């Protein structure tokens, strides 16, 4: 049986006793590696981080990475995460989920948390498919994609999560590639360090259900941006895919205050520090006389 912590040689290791169950060659391995590296780099111990996982191949990372985890419903991890951040804003909060999860079932949470600039990091496994449910088109599937439910080529335009986040002035919007772990680790660590909503849209090859978008296909197109855009229009423009070019790196960044900093209640203490103690409401009740 799986055990998280007992026989760990290194208490700060991010591995659990379960080895990932992803398909050999899946891009999720690269994201998994980069994330663990980033947390080590930032010297965040596993018990000092709160993960919120979506449901999908991506969300299955919940059993492969050590830390305080919450494996949510399909689509809802962001909603749990923003509540958690308000509850204990001193703790890093990281959401890990797929494109179907974050941009299909959960797209409203994605937009609203970006525009509120909640201080969470969202790592989006963008593979263009519903992996776990065996290869249906996801909201980021490109036009022409074929799948069992839609055997003819799809005609919908894909959702572009970076453009969406930039349009709503999320604090930090980046795109990485699962096949380039070093660069991805760097992006993820900067995203976690950013005080505000941070997105890492990860181009993630699904070797089983989306073989056309292979490592080579991405390598031929990725094109690192040099400096993050500060204005929305440039950011959106840079985030768009063309036939030949997909921008990676930090595409857009701003210095908006994180959502929770607007609350005077949180200036000195966390809600966690003050909750669960009986309050005196004498004065409040006087108002009812």
């Amino acid at each position: 049986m799986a055990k998280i912590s007992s026989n760990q040689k290194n208490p700060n290791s991010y591995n659990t006793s379960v080895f990932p169950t992803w398909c050999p060659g899946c891009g999720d391995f690269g994201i998994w590696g980069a994330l663990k590296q980033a947390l080590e780099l930032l010297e965040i111990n596993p018990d000092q981080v709160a993960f919120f996982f979506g449901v999908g191949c991506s969300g299955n990372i919940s059993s492969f990475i050590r830390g305080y985890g919450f494996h949510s419903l399909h689509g809802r991890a962001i909603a749990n995460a923003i509540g958690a951040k308000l509850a204990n804003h001193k703790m890093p909060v990281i959401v890990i989920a797929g494109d179907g999860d974050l941009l299909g079932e959960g797209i409203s949470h994605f937009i609203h948390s970006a525009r509120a600039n909640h201080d969470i990091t969202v790592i989006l496994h963008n593979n263009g498919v519903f992996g776990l449910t065996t290869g249906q088109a996801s909201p980021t599937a490109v036009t022409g994609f074929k799948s069992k439910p839609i055997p003819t080529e799809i005609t919908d335009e894909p959702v572009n999560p970076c453009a969406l986040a930039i349009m709503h002035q999320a604090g930090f919007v980046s795109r990485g590639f699962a096949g380039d772990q070093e660069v991805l680790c760097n992006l993820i660590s900067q995203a976690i360090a950013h005080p505000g909503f941070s997105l890492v849209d990860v181009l993630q090859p699904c070797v089983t259900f989306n073989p056309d978008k292979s490592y080579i296909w991405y390598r031929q197109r990725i094109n690192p941006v040099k400096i993050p855009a500060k204005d929305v229009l440039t950011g959106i423009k840079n985030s768009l895919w063309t036939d030949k070019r997909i921008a990676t790196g930090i595409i857009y960044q701003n210095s908006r205050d994180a959502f929770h900093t607007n609350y005077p209640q949180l200036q000195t203490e966390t809600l966690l520090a003050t909750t669960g103690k009986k309050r005196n409401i004498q004065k409040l009740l006087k108002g009812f006389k």
Partner: protein
Amino acid sequence: MKSEISIKVGGPAGAGVKSVGQILAKTLQRLGFHVFEYPEYPSLIRGGHNTELIQALVEKKYSLTKPVDLLIALDDKTLSLDLPEVIPGGMVIFDSKIDFKSNSSKIKFLSIPMSDIALKLGNPLTANIVAVGAALRVMGSTTETTSKLLADQFSQKGPDVISANIKSLEAGWNFVKDKSFHPILDLISDLPAKGRSASGGKVSNELMMNGNEALSSGAISAGMGLYTAYPMTPSTPILHFLAAHQNEFGYISLQAADEITSVNMVIGAMHMGVRAMCGTSGGGFALMNESLALSGMTETPLVLVLVQRPGPATGLPTWTEQGELQYAVHAAHGEFLRFVLAPGDIEETFQMAFDAFNLAERYQTPVIIMLDKFLSESSMSSGNLSSIGFSIDRGKITDPKKLNRVKNFQRYQLTADGVSSRSLPGMENGIFCANSDEHEYHGLVDESSSMRVWQVDKRLKKMETASKMMPGPQLIGPKDAKITIVTWGSGKLPAQQAMMTMNKKQETGNNEKVNLLHFSYIWPMNANAIREALKNCATSTLLIEQNATGQFQSLLKEQIGWEPTAYLRKYDGRPFYAEEIIEKVVEL
């Protein structure tokens, strides 16, 4: 002379009907009466027909009765719609701008230029306050208590607002005084004297509070850290109230993007160790259903307030019903423990906000508090809640010091009562995964047959533990009654009013004695305690509930195998009036 008074105020939305109701209700309370105030309004912002029914009694006033002694009409609709409720000997005061001539000799009519007086004073928006002044004079009261009340209520808004309102109040009062005929309502003359006799000359220590306010106050007192909601009548006032007091108490109240966000924020916050609550009505509750199961599966506490209104779908947004009991008991997929609490009055509502947090944390599972529009928006005199003594129980949250000694913390360990200890994110050595997938002791996915059975049994063990400690129903009233009225949730209010009236008649030798069996801890059911309590019922029983299909009745039949002699159901969106219950009891 009567020892009670019933006043109805009517007018279009936006005319200040609500303020008239509140001011009169609080004035009467300060004068020493027990007061019940009930608002009715359609789902629109301007126009329509809003009313406030304010009923005050020298004894405890539990709920509504039908007759109206004094009708205050701010528009013509009130005169056509509400006039039939005024009893012979009663009185109507109406704004002179309404073109109205009466030919009734049994009811006194008094035309008062409310709008004109307010306009002349330079405050056209205070026509309703002129009406309050006139009503006070008609009832034989001075303006003293009310002026003081206005000063208290508008203290934030400054002296100009206060003096403008008091001027209008006095102008209304003086207008009636200067009238040549004697305009005192015979039924209720010398109100202050009655109030004094009611309170024994003391200033009332009671609170004038509605269910939403009692619930909010209870949650604040219970150390709530976060409240989230998406506006939906009749739960919206909770959001407004809690938002207004957040800085003072240090919790956060916020409007979530939708109900699914709301409930999941609460689950996220609870996972981190913060007491959190969300509130909604039926439609929003439907959206939250999948997340109830998330709370059940991950064993994360959740407190959810469900303020019912008549459905299905948008239904009657601003009216009342108890139509979601079976839904709350069964909502969401899979099998897990949830608590359903349905308080029956203000004290119970306050107490159950406390209970809800304790139960959610003790059993690490969702708790649904069910109110309805009638209880949540009716204000009534209630005991001083601050004297209710509760203690906070956060359940099995592990002590971080103990965690250091544990080598292999198992969040989902099997235990005798089904409840395992919970670490909070950030605690050293307490790592686990709260997993919506079936999981093993640490929360990692486990689909094995044996672990599945163990974990299902563990979660259901909590149901067994919980049902044994659930309080049974309360028997209220005389033990030797001939008829027992059975109620759940807000049904307690009209049933108590009916019981009080009937048992008073009994003193005069008219009727059979009546008592009440009231359920507020609804689910899980403590079958033993309920069977025991049912044994103490009278031979004739009447189950009343505000829905068409008898949801509580079928739940009792299914779980306990018990059925009442008769039932009374109402589902027109209006609350029970005591008379309706009395009529049914007399038939038995």
